[in-house]
Protein backbone atom coordinates (compact mmCIF):
# COMPACT_ATOMS: atom_id res chain seq x y z
CA UNK A 1 0.00 0.00 0.00
CA UNK A 2 1.86 3.05 -1.22
CA UNK A 3 -1.33 5.04 -1.66
CA UNK A 4 -2.00 8.01 0.50
CA UNK A 5 -4.72 7.08 3.00
CA UNK A 6 -8.10 8.61 2.24
CA UNK A 7 -8.75 8.91 5.96
CA UNK A 8 -5.93 9.38 8.43
CA UNK A 9 -6.88 9.39 12.10
CA UNK A 10 -4.42 10.25 14.87
CA UNK A 11 -5.06 9.84 18.59
CA UNK A 12 -8.83 10.17 18.47
CA UNK A 13 -10.02 10.50 22.04
CA UNK A 14 -13.53 10.76 23.41
CA UNK A 15 -14.02 10.97 27.15
CA UNK A 16 -17.17 11.46 29.17
CA UNK A 17 -16.26 13.29 32.36
CA UNK A 18 -13.69 15.88 33.38
CA UNK A 19 -10.75 13.55 34.02
CA UNK A 20 -8.47 13.91 37.05
CA UNK A 21 -4.81 13.81 38.00
CA UNK A 22 -4.86 10.02 38.20
CA UNK A 23 -6.38 9.22 34.83
CA UNK A 24 -4.94 12.13 32.83
CA UNK A 25 -1.38 10.93 33.24
CA UNK A 26 -1.10 7.22 33.45
CA UNK A 27 -3.98 5.52 31.69
CA UNK A 28 -2.67 1.99 31.58
CA UNK A 29 -2.34 1.68 35.32
CA UNK A 30 -5.17 3.87 36.46
CA UNK A 31 -8.18 2.74 34.45
CA UNK A 32 -10.61 0.01 35.36
CA UNK A 33 -11.53 -1.20 31.88
CA UNK A 34 -12.22 2.24 30.37
CA UNK A 35 -13.30 4.01 33.55
CA UNK A 36 -11.26 5.97 36.04
CA UNK A 37 -12.04 4.70 39.55
CA UNK A 38 -11.10 8.09 41.07
CA UNK A 39 -13.29 10.52 39.14
CA UNK A 40 -15.62 8.21 37.21
CA UNK A 41 -14.57 9.56 33.81
CA UNK A 42 -15.21 7.09 30.99
CA UNK A 43 -12.74 6.97 28.12
CA UNK A 44 -14.95 5.61 25.34
CA UNK A 45 -12.26 6.07 22.68
CA UNK A 46 -8.70 6.19 23.88
CA UNK A 47 -6.04 7.42 21.45
CA UNK A 48 -7.28 5.64 18.36
CA UNK A 49 -4.93 5.95 15.38
CA UNK A 50 -5.54 4.27 12.05
CA UNK A 51 -5.65 4.78 8.30
CA UNK A 52 -8.22 3.88 5.66
CA UNK A 53 -6.93 3.52 2.12
CA UNK A 54 -8.86 4.26 -1.08
CA UNK A 55 -11.20 1.45 -2.06
CA UNK A 56 -10.58 -0.78 0.94
CA UNK A 57 -12.92 -1.99 3.64
CA UNK A 58 -11.61 -1.63 7.15
CA UNK A 59 -13.34 -3.90 9.64
CA UNK A 60 -13.73 -3.00 13.31
CA UNK A 61 -14.56 -5.72 15.83
CA UNK A 62 -14.89 -5.69 19.58
CA UNK A 63 -17.31 -6.50 22.35
CA UNK A 64 -20.17 -4.15 23.13
CA UNK A 65 -18.95 -1.16 25.09
CA UNK A 66 -15.54 -1.26 23.46
CA UNK A 67 -16.08 2.11 21.78
CA UNK A 68 -16.86 1.06 18.21
CA UNK A 69 -20.04 3.05 17.80
CA UNK A 70 -18.66 6.08 19.62
CA UNK A 71 -15.75 6.08 17.21
CA UNK A 72 -18.16 6.00 14.26
CA UNK A 73 -20.22 8.83 15.73
CA UNK A 74 -17.05 10.88 16.17
CA UNK A 75 -16.03 10.21 12.58
CA UNK A 76 -19.46 11.32 11.35
CA UNK A 77 -19.34 14.33 13.71
CA UNK A 78 -22.46 13.25 15.61
CA UNK A 79 -20.28 13.47 18.71
CA UNK A 80 -17.55 16.00 19.30
CA UNK A 81 -14.13 14.46 19.98
CA UNK A 82 -12.30 15.36 23.19
CA UNK A 83 -9.03 15.52 21.29
CA UNK A 84 -7.39 14.04 18.23
CA UNK A 85 -6.95 14.68 14.55
CA UNK A 86 -8.44 13.38 11.33
CA UNK A 87 -7.40 14.18 7.78
CA UNK A 88 -9.42 13.38 4.68
CA UNK A 89 -7.35 13.32 1.50
CA UNK A 90 -10.14 14.77 -0.67
CA UNK A 91 -10.82 17.63 1.74
CA UNK A 92 -8.40 20.55 1.44
CA UNK A 93 -5.65 18.24 0.16
CA UNK A 94 -5.74 16.32 3.43
CA UNK A 95 -3.90 19.16 5.17
CA UNK A 96 -6.66 20.22 7.55
CA UNK A 97 -7.61 18.49 10.78
CA UNK A 98 -11.34 18.14 10.20
CA UNK A 99 -12.12 17.84 13.92
CA UNK A 100 -11.10 21.50 14.22
CA UNK A 101 -13.50 22.72 11.53
CA UNK A 102 -16.62 24.82 12.19
CA UNK A 103 -19.94 23.00 12.45
CA UNK A 104 -20.97 24.52 9.12
CA UNK A 105 -17.96 22.98 7.39
CA UNK A 106 -18.47 19.69 9.20
CA UNK A 107 -21.98 19.63 7.81
CA UNK A 108 -20.56 20.16 4.34
CA UNK A 109 -18.11 17.28 4.77
CA UNK A 110 -20.89 15.04 6.05
CA UNK A 111 -23.10 15.88 3.12
CA UNK A 112 -20.53 15.54 0.37
CA UNK A 113 -17.71 13.23 1.51
CA UNK A 114 -19.26 10.90 4.06
CA UNK A 115 -22.12 8.43 4.09
CA UNK A 116 -23.36 6.78 7.27
CA UNK A 117 -25.52 3.75 7.90
CA UNK A 118 -26.58 3.45 11.51
CA UNK A 119 -27.31 0.24 13.34
CA UNK A 120 -30.71 1.65 14.20
CA UNK A 121 -32.50 2.98 11.08
CA UNK A 122 -34.43 5.44 13.28
CA UNK A 123 -31.20 7.43 13.64
CA UNK A 124 -30.51 7.61 9.93
CA UNK A 125 -33.98 7.98 8.43
CA UNK A 126 -37.02 10.14 8.90
CA UNK A 127 -39.58 7.41 9.43
CA UNK A 128 -42.56 9.58 8.52
CA UNK A 129 -41.13 10.89 5.25
CA UNK A 130 -41.21 8.95 1.99
CA UNK A 131 -38.21 6.82 1.08
CA UNK A 132 -37.49 8.96 -1.94
CA UNK A 133 -37.69 12.03 0.29
CA UNK A 134 -35.23 10.47 2.71
CA UNK A 135 -32.75 9.89 -0.08
CA UNK A 136 -33.33 13.34 -1.52
CA UNK A 137 -32.71 14.92 1.87
CA UNK A 138 -29.00 14.29 1.59
CA UNK A 139 -28.91 15.70 -1.93
CA UNK A 140 -30.90 18.75 -0.85
CA UNK A 141 -28.46 19.22 2.01
CA UNK A 142 -25.61 19.16 -0.51
CA UNK A 143 -27.30 21.95 -2.44
CA UNK A 144 -29.38 20.23 -5.14
CA UNK A 145 -32.57 22.15 -5.94
CA UNK A 146 -33.83 20.16 -8.91
CA UNK A 147 -36.72 17.83 -8.14
CA UNK A 148 -36.54 15.71 -11.28
CA UNK A 149 -32.82 15.11 -11.03
CA UNK A 150 -33.12 14.07 -7.37
CA UNK A 151 -36.11 11.85 -8.04
CA UNK A 152 -34.30 10.06 -10.87
CA UNK A 153 -31.16 9.57 -8.84
CA UNK A 154 -33.25 8.19 -5.96
CA UNK A 155 -34.90 5.73 -8.31
CA UNK A 156 -31.54 4.49 -9.57
CA UNK A 157 -30.33 4.04 -6.00
CA UNK A 158 -33.47 2.27 -4.82
CA UNK A 159 -33.17 -0.11 -7.75
CA UNK A 160 -29.56 -0.65 -6.81
CA UNK A 161 -30.53 -1.72 -3.30
CA UNK A 162 -33.41 -3.86 -4.63
CA UNK A 163 -36.36 -1.84 -3.37
CA UNK A 164 -39.26 -1.86 -5.83
CA UNK A 165 -39.83 1.55 -7.40
CA UNK A 166 -43.54 1.10 -6.78
CA UNK A 167 -42.83 1.51 -3.07
CA UNK A 168 -40.53 4.50 -3.30
CA UNK A 169 -43.15 6.88 -1.94
CA UNK A 170 -43.83 4.69 1.09
CA UNK A 171 -42.46 5.81 4.43
CA UNK A 172 -39.67 3.64 5.90
CA UNK A 173 -41.89 2.93 8.92
CA UNK A 174 -43.94 0.73 6.61
CA UNK A 175 -40.83 -1.27 5.67
CA UNK A 176 -39.20 -4.31 7.21
CA UNK A 177 -35.92 -3.88 9.07
CA UNK A 178 -33.89 -5.14 6.12
CA UNK A 179 -35.60 -2.78 3.71
CA UNK A 180 -35.07 0.15 6.07
CA UNK A 181 -31.40 -0.72 6.21
CA UNK A 182 -31.25 -0.77 2.42
CA UNK A 183 -32.98 2.62 2.19
CA UNK A 184 -30.32 3.91 4.58
CA UNK A 185 -27.61 2.55 2.31
CA UNK A 186 -29.25 4.17 -0.72
CA UNK A 187 -29.39 7.47 1.16
CA UNK A 188 -25.77 7.20 2.24
CA UNK A 189 -24.74 6.60 -1.39
CA UNK A 190 -26.78 9.45 -2.88
CA UNK A 191 -23.94 11.98 -3.17
CA UNK A 192 -21.27 9.52 -4.34
CA UNK A 193 -19.39 9.73 -1.05
CA UNK A 194 -15.79 8.47 -1.19
CA UNK A 195 -16.09 7.21 2.39
CA UNK A 196 -18.93 5.11 3.78
CA UNK A 197 -19.37 4.35 7.49
CA UNK A 198 -21.37 1.23 8.33
CA UNK A 199 -22.26 0.60 11.97
CA UNK A 200 -23.55 -2.92 12.66
CA UNK A 201 -25.67 -2.84 9.52
CA UNK A 202 -26.66 -6.50 9.64
CA UNK A 203 -27.21 -6.88 13.36
CA UNK A 204 -30.75 -7.91 14.11
CA UNK A 205 -31.58 -8.93 10.54
CA UNK A 206 -32.50 -12.49 9.69
CA UNK A 207 -29.92 -14.57 7.86
CA UNK A 208 -31.23 -14.32 4.32
CA UNK A 209 -31.65 -10.55 4.56
CA UNK A 210 -28.23 -10.32 6.19
CA UNK A 211 -26.74 -12.14 3.24
CA UNK A 212 -28.38 -9.85 0.70
CA UNK A 213 -27.29 -6.70 2.54
CA UNK A 214 -23.72 -8.00 2.80
CA UNK A 215 -23.81 -8.90 -0.86
CA UNK A 216 -24.96 -5.40 -1.65
CA UNK A 217 -22.15 -3.82 0.35
CA UNK A 218 -19.57 -5.97 -1.39
CA UNK A 219 -21.01 -5.10 -4.80
CA UNK A 220 -21.00 -1.40 -4.01
CA UNK A 221 -17.39 -1.55 -2.95
CA UNK A 222 -16.35 -3.40 -6.09
CA UNK A 223 -18.42 -1.31 -8.51
CA UNK A 224 -18.00 2.12 -7.02
CA UNK A 225 -14.65 1.73 -5.31
CA UNK A 226 -15.89 3.37 -2.12
CA UNK A 227 -13.74 3.13 1.01
CA UNK A 228 -15.63 1.82 4.00
CA UNK A 229 -15.32 1.35 7.71
CA UNK A 230 -17.47 -1.59 8.77
CA UNK A 231 -18.19 -2.04 12.46
CA UNK A 232 -19.49 -5.39 13.61
CA UNK A 233 -19.25 -7.73 16.53
CA UNK A 234 -19.89 -10.58 14.11
CA UNK A 235 -16.62 -12.07 12.92
CA UNK A 236 -18.31 -13.80 9.99
CA UNK A 237 -19.34 -10.41 8.62
CA UNK A 238 -15.84 -9.07 9.07
CA UNK A 239 -14.31 -12.13 7.43
CA UNK A 240 -16.53 -11.71 4.40
CA UNK A 241 -16.17 -7.96 3.94
CA UNK A 242 -13.01 -6.55 5.41
CA UNK A 243 -9.57 -6.39 3.82
CA UNK A 244 -8.01 -5.22 7.03
CA UNK A 245 -9.36 -5.40 10.55
CA UNK A 246 -8.75 -3.74 13.85
CA UNK A 247 -9.80 -5.16 17.19
CA UNK A 248 -11.04 -2.84 19.92
CA UNK A 249 -11.25 -3.41 23.66
CA UNK A 250 -12.06 -0.90 26.38
CA UNK A 251 -11.73 2.04 24.02
CA UNK A 252 -8.36 1.02 22.60
CA UNK A 253 -7.15 -0.66 19.45
CA UNK A 254 -5.40 -3.77 20.70
CA UNK A 255 -4.58 -5.33 17.38
CA UNK A 256 -4.77 -4.45 13.70
CA UNK A 257 -3.71 -6.08 10.49
CA UNK A 258 -4.92 -8.09 7.51
CA UNK A 259 -8.22 -9.77 8.30
CA UNK A 260 -6.99 -13.27 7.52
CA UNK A 261 -3.96 -12.76 9.68
CA UNK A 262 -6.00 -11.61 12.63
CA UNK A 263 -8.50 -14.42 12.33
CA UNK A 264 -5.95 -17.16 11.70
CA UNK A 265 -3.21 -15.99 13.98
CA UNK A 266 -4.52 -13.70 16.69
CA UNK A 267 -1.80 -12.23 18.90
CA UNK A 268 -3.66 -10.52 21.72
CA UNK A 269 -5.27 -12.64 24.40
CA UNK A 270 -8.65 -11.00 23.88
CA UNK A 271 -8.56 -11.53 20.11
CA UNK A 272 -7.69 -15.16 20.67
CA UNK A 273 -10.64 -15.54 22.97
CA UNK A 274 -12.86 -13.77 20.43
CA UNK A 275 -11.76 -15.93 17.53
CA UNK A 276 -11.98 -19.20 19.44
CA UNK A 277 -15.40 -18.40 20.83
CA UNK A 278 -16.79 -18.60 17.28
CA UNK A 279 -19.33 -21.35 17.22
Amino acid sequence: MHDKPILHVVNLKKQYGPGCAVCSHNHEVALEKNRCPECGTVFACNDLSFDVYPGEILGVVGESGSGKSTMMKCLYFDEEVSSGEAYISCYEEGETNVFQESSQKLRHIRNTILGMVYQNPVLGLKMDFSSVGNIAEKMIAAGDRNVNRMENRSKVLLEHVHIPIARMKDEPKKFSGGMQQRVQIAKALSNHPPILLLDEVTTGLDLSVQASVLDLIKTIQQELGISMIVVSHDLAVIRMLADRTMVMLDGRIIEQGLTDQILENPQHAYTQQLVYSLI
Partner: protein
Amino acid sequence: MKNKTHFALMDEGSKKEIRRATLKAVAIPGYQVPFASREMPIARGWGTGGLQLTLSIIGKEDVLKVIDQGADESVNAVNIKKLVHHTTGVETTTETEDATIIQSRHRIPEVPVTEKQIIVLQVPIPEPLRLVEPSEMKTKQLHGEKEYSGAWLMLFEQIMKYGKTATYADHPVFVHDRYVMAPSPIPRFDNIKMNDSKALILLGAGREKKIYAVPPYTKVTSLAFEDYAMEVESFAGKHCSLCHSTDVFLDELVNEETNVTYYQCNDTSNCLATLNEKEKVVEVGIGNA
Protein backbone atom coordinates in the same frame (compact mmCIF):
# COMPACT_ATOMS: atom_id res chain seq x y z
CA MET B 1 -64.86 51.46 30.98
CA LYS B 2 -63.00 54.41 32.45
CA ASN B 3 -59.71 55.30 30.85
CA LYS B 4 -57.76 54.80 34.07
CA THR B 5 -55.62 51.92 32.96
CA HIS B 6 -52.02 52.40 31.97
CA PHE B 7 -51.65 53.79 28.45
CA ALA B 8 -51.83 50.77 26.13
CA LEU B 9 -52.52 48.41 29.02
CA MET B 10 -48.94 47.29 29.69
CA ASP B 11 -46.49 48.98 32.03
CA GLU B 12 -43.62 50.92 30.46
CA GLY B 13 -41.05 48.29 31.37
CA SER B 14 -42.92 45.61 29.47
CA LYS B 15 -43.39 47.82 26.45
CA LYS B 16 -39.71 48.71 26.44
CA GLU B 17 -38.71 45.07 26.57
CA ILE B 18 -40.95 44.27 23.62
CA ARG B 19 -39.66 47.29 21.70
CA ARG B 20 -36.08 46.21 22.31
CA ALA B 21 -36.88 42.76 20.94
CA THR B 22 -38.62 44.43 18.00
CA LEU B 23 -35.60 46.61 17.22
CA LYS B 24 -33.37 43.57 17.27
CA ALA B 25 -35.79 41.77 14.96
CA VAL B 26 -35.72 44.68 12.51
CA ALA B 27 -31.93 44.71 12.63
CA ILE B 28 -31.74 40.99 11.76
CA PRO B 29 -34.46 40.46 9.13
CA GLY B 30 -36.20 37.11 9.51
CA TYR B 31 -34.47 36.16 12.75
CA GLN B 32 -36.77 35.07 15.57
CA VAL B 33 -36.06 37.12 18.67
CA PRO B 34 -37.28 35.60 21.95
CA PHE B 35 -39.28 37.90 24.22
CA ALA B 36 -41.12 37.62 27.52
CA SER B 37 -44.66 37.22 26.26
CA ARG B 38 -47.05 38.86 28.73
CA GLU B 39 -50.43 37.68 29.90
CA MET B 40 -53.05 39.45 27.81
CA PRO B 41 -56.77 39.78 28.39
CA ILE B 42 -57.28 37.40 25.45
CA ALA B 43 -56.20 33.78 25.31
CA ARG B 44 -52.85 32.73 23.87
CA GLY B 45 -53.31 31.62 20.31
CA TRP B 46 -55.85 34.41 19.71
CA GLY B 47 -53.37 37.03 18.60
CA THR B 48 -51.51 37.87 21.79
CA GLY B 49 -48.21 38.22 19.90
CA GLY B 50 -49.71 40.73 17.50
CA LEU B 51 -51.55 42.52 20.28
CA GLN B 52 -48.41 42.96 22.36
CA LEU B 53 -46.56 44.35 19.35
CA THR B 54 -49.40 46.76 18.62
CA LEU B 55 -49.64 47.91 22.24
CA SER B 56 -45.91 48.44 22.57
CA ILE B 57 -45.52 50.54 19.41
CA ILE B 58 -48.79 52.48 19.40
CA GLY B 59 -48.76 56.22 20.12
CA LYS B 60 -51.55 58.75 20.62
CA GLU B 61 -51.37 59.92 16.99
CA ASP B 62 -51.77 56.43 15.52
CA VAL B 63 -54.81 55.10 13.73
CA LEU B 64 -55.45 51.39 14.09
CA LYS B 65 -57.00 48.87 11.75
CA VAL B 66 -57.44 45.25 12.81
CA ILE B 67 -58.36 42.49 10.39
CA ASP B 68 -59.04 38.82 10.93
CA GLN B 69 -58.74 36.66 7.80
CA GLY B 70 -59.43 39.76 5.72
CA ALA B 71 -62.50 40.84 7.69
CA ASP B 72 -62.73 44.03 9.78
CA GLU B 73 -65.93 43.00 11.50
CA SER B 74 -65.16 39.58 12.91
CA VAL B 75 -65.47 39.13 16.67
CA ASN B 76 -61.75 38.84 17.28
CA ALA B 77 -60.85 41.89 15.20
CA VAL B 78 -63.58 44.00 16.79
CA ASN B 79 -62.61 43.02 20.33
CA ILE B 80 -58.91 43.71 19.80
CA LYS B 81 -59.82 47.08 18.29
CA LYS B 82 -62.06 47.91 21.26
CA LEU B 83 -59.42 46.88 23.78
CA VAL B 84 -56.74 49.05 22.19
CA HIS B 85 -59.14 51.96 21.83
CA HIS B 86 -60.24 51.76 25.48
CA THR B 87 -56.69 51.62 26.80
CA THR B 88 -55.16 54.24 24.49
CA GLY B 89 -57.97 56.35 23.11
CA VAL B 90 -56.56 56.09 19.58
CA GLU B 91 -58.84 56.17 16.58
CA THR B 92 -59.69 52.94 14.83
CA THR B 93 -60.61 52.57 11.18
CA THR B 94 -61.57 50.02 8.58
CA GLU B 95 -59.96 51.98 5.73
CA THR B 96 -56.54 50.57 4.91
CA GLU B 97 -55.31 53.96 3.59
CA ASP B 98 -56.14 55.76 6.85
CA ALA B 99 -54.42 53.32 9.21
CA THR B 100 -50.89 53.77 10.52
CA ILE B 101 -50.84 50.38 12.24
CA ILE B 102 -52.56 47.40 10.66
CA GLN B 103 -52.79 44.34 12.89
CA SER B 104 -53.76 41.34 10.85
CA ARG B 105 -54.41 37.67 11.09
CA HIS B 106 -53.56 35.69 7.96
CA ARG B 107 -53.82 38.45 5.33
CA ILE B 108 -51.97 41.43 3.96
CA PRO B 109 -54.53 44.00 2.71
CA GLU B 110 -55.26 44.28 -1.03
CA VAL B 111 -54.67 48.04 -1.02
CA PRO B 112 -50.91 48.61 -1.40
CA VAL B 113 -49.35 49.61 1.91
CA THR B 114 -47.15 52.67 2.33
CA GLU B 115 -43.93 53.68 4.08
CA LYS B 116 -45.98 55.35 6.83
CA GLN B 117 -47.69 52.12 7.83
CA ILE B 118 -46.66 49.18 9.98
CA ILE B 119 -48.19 45.77 9.44
CA VAL B 120 -48.41 43.58 12.55
CA LEU B 121 -49.04 39.91 11.81
CA GLN B 122 -50.25 37.35 14.34
CA VAL B 123 -48.24 34.13 14.19
CA PRO B 124 -49.23 30.70 15.54
CA ILE B 125 -46.01 28.80 14.71
CA PRO B 126 -43.01 31.02 14.03
CA GLU B 127 -40.54 28.18 13.36
CA PRO B 128 -40.53 27.10 9.70
CA LEU B 129 -38.50 23.99 10.56
CA ARG B 130 -40.69 22.83 13.44
CA LEU B 131 -42.37 20.03 11.49
CA VAL B 132 -39.06 18.38 10.68
CA GLU B 133 -37.22 19.22 13.88
CA PRO B 134 -39.10 19.31 17.19
CA SER B 135 -36.17 20.50 19.28
CA GLU B 136 -35.83 24.27 19.69
CA MET B 137 -32.14 23.93 20.51
CA LYS B 138 -31.53 22.16 17.22
CA THR B 139 -33.59 24.52 15.08
CA LYS B 140 -31.62 27.44 16.52
CA GLN B 141 -28.42 25.70 15.44
CA LEU B 142 -29.86 25.00 11.99
CA HIS B 143 -30.73 28.68 11.54
CA GLY B 144 -27.28 29.63 12.75
CA GLU B 145 -25.66 27.37 10.18
CA LYS B 146 -28.13 28.37 7.45
CA GLU B 147 -29.03 24.70 7.13
CA TYR B 148 -32.50 24.61 5.64
CA SER B 149 -32.70 21.13 4.09
CA GLY B 150 -35.69 20.44 6.34
CA ALA B 151 -37.80 23.22 4.83
CA TRP B 152 -36.87 22.11 1.32
CA LEU B 153 -37.55 18.49 2.22
CA MET B 154 -41.11 19.34 3.26
CA LEU B 155 -41.72 20.94 -0.14
CA PHE B 156 -40.07 17.98 -1.89
CA GLU B 157 -42.38 15.60 -0.04
CA GLN B 158 -45.42 17.57 -1.14
CA ILE B 159 -44.27 17.43 -4.76
CA MET B 160 -43.78 13.67 -4.46
CA LYS B 161 -47.23 13.22 -2.95
CA TYR B 162 -49.33 15.74 -4.83
CA GLY B 163 -47.27 16.66 -7.88
CA LYS B 164 -46.90 20.25 -6.67
CA THR B 165 -46.07 22.16 -3.52
CA ALA B 166 -49.19 21.98 -1.40
CA THR B 167 -48.70 24.67 1.23
CA TYR B 168 -52.15 26.26 1.41
CA ALA B 169 -50.70 29.02 3.56
CA ASP B 170 -47.51 29.80 5.44
CA HIS B 171 -45.29 28.89 2.47
CA PRO B 172 -41.74 29.43 3.80
CA VAL B 173 -39.75 32.41 2.53
CA PHE B 174 -36.11 33.40 2.40
CA VAL B 175 -35.56 36.82 3.94
CA HIS B 176 -32.64 38.91 2.71
CA ASP B 177 -31.04 35.67 1.39
CA ARG B 178 -30.26 34.62 4.94
CA TYR B 179 -33.04 33.36 7.20
CA VAL B 180 -35.87 31.06 6.22
CA MET B 181 -38.99 32.49 7.82
CA ALA B 182 -42.60 31.45 8.36
CA PRO B 183 -44.58 34.37 6.89
CA SER B 184 -47.49 33.46 9.26
CA PRO B 185 -50.40 31.65 7.61
CA ILE B 186 -50.95 34.20 4.84
CA PRO B 187 -51.88 32.69 1.47
CA ARG B 188 -49.13 32.36 -1.15
CA PHE B 189 -51.02 35.18 -2.89
CA ASP B 190 -49.72 37.51 -0.16
CA ASN B 191 -46.14 36.16 -0.01
CA ILE B 192 -45.37 38.29 -3.04
CA LYS B 193 -46.53 41.44 -1.23
CA MET B 194 -43.83 40.88 1.39
CA ASN B 195 -41.04 41.29 -1.13
CA ASP B 196 -39.77 44.87 -1.24
CA SER B 197 -42.70 45.96 0.94
CA LYS B 198 -42.92 49.67 1.56
CA ALA B 199 -44.29 49.11 5.05
CA LEU B 200 -42.44 47.60 7.98
CA ILE B 201 -43.79 44.14 8.71
CA LEU B 202 -43.65 42.90 12.31
CA LEU B 203 -44.60 39.35 13.26
CA GLY B 204 -45.46 38.32 16.80
CA ALA B 205 -46.05 34.86 18.27
CA GLY B 206 -47.40 35.27 21.81
CA ARG B 207 -47.68 31.61 22.71
CA GLU B 208 -44.25 30.77 21.26
CA LYS B 209 -42.74 33.99 22.65
CA LYS B 210 -41.04 35.13 19.45
CA ILE B 211 -40.89 38.40 17.54
CA TYR B 212 -39.47 38.75 14.03
CA ALA B 213 -39.61 41.31 11.28
CA VAL B 214 -39.24 42.21 7.64
CA PRO B 215 -37.95 45.79 7.36
CA PRO B 216 -39.18 47.97 4.47
CA TYR B 217 -37.64 47.26 1.05
CA THR B 218 -36.25 43.85 2.02
CA LYS B 219 -35.87 40.99 -0.44
CA VAL B 220 -38.33 38.21 0.40
CA THR B 221 -38.46 35.17 -1.89
CA SER B 222 -40.65 32.09 -1.54
CA LEU B 223 -38.81 28.77 -1.44
CA ALA B 224 -39.11 27.02 -4.81
CA PHE B 225 -37.21 24.30 -6.67
CA GLU B 226 -35.62 24.97 -10.07
CA ASP B 227 -38.20 22.87 -11.87
CA TYR B 228 -41.21 23.56 -9.62
CA ALA B 229 -41.98 27.24 -9.20
CA MET B 230 -44.13 28.43 -6.32
CA GLU B 231 -47.61 28.93 -7.70
CA VAL B 232 -49.85 31.66 -6.37
CA GLU B 233 -53.51 30.77 -5.80
CA SER B 234 -55.28 31.35 -9.07
CA PHE B 235 -58.78 32.79 -9.40
CA ALA B 236 -58.82 32.83 -13.18
CA GLY B 237 -62.32 33.17 -14.54
CA LYS B 238 -63.78 33.91 -11.10
CA HIS B 239 -64.91 37.18 -9.63
CA CYS B 240 -66.38 38.60 -6.43
CA SER B 241 -70.16 38.18 -6.41
CA LEU B 242 -70.57 41.59 -4.70
CA CYS B 243 -68.09 43.96 -6.33
CA HIS B 244 -67.04 41.86 -9.35
CA SER B 245 -63.31 42.35 -8.68
CA THR B 246 -61.08 39.75 -10.34
CA ASP B 247 -57.52 40.54 -9.25
CA VAL B 248 -58.06 39.96 -5.52
CA PHE B 249 -57.97 37.02 -3.11
CA LEU B 250 -61.40 35.36 -3.17
CA ASP B 251 -63.19 33.15 -0.66
CA GLU B 252 -65.16 30.22 -2.01
CA LEU B 253 -68.68 30.03 -0.63
CA VAL B 254 -71.61 27.74 -1.24
CA ASN B 255 -75.21 28.88 -1.33
CA GLU B 256 -76.79 26.35 0.98
CA GLU B 257 -80.21 26.51 -0.68
CA THR B 258 -79.19 26.20 -4.30
CA ASN B 259 -75.82 24.46 -3.72
CA VAL B 260 -74.21 26.86 -6.14
CA THR B 261 -70.59 27.85 -5.52
CA TYR B 262 -69.83 31.54 -5.60
CA TYR B 263 -66.90 33.77 -4.70
CA GLN B 264 -66.53 36.83 -2.58
CA CYS B 265 -63.68 39.21 -1.72
CA ASN B 266 -61.71 38.08 1.31
CA ASP B 267 -60.68 41.67 2.10
CA THR B 268 -64.03 43.14 3.21
CA SER B 269 -62.98 46.78 3.42
CA ASN B 270 -61.53 46.66 -0.08
CA CYS B 271 -64.75 45.09 -1.35
CA LEU B 272 -66.82 47.83 0.28
CA ALA B 273 -64.55 50.53 -1.16
CA THR B 274 -64.92 49.08 -4.65
CA LEU B 275 -68.71 48.98 -4.26
CA ASN B 276 -68.82 52.59 -3.03
CA GLU B 277 -66.65 53.66 -5.95
CA LYS B 278 -69.10 52.02 -8.37
CA GLU B 279 -72.04 53.63 -6.61
CA LYS B 280 -70.44 57.05 -7.08
CA VAL B 281 -69.90 56.43 -10.78
CA VAL B 282 -73.55 55.48 -11.13
CA GLU B 283 -74.71 58.55 -9.16
CA VAL B 284 -72.53 60.83 -11.24
CA GLY B 285 -73.93 59.16 -14.33
CA ILE B 286 -77.50 59.81 -13.14
CA GLY B 287 -76.64 63.39 -12.17
CA ASN B 288 -75.32 64.10 -15.63
CA ALA B 289 -78.30 62.62 -17.40
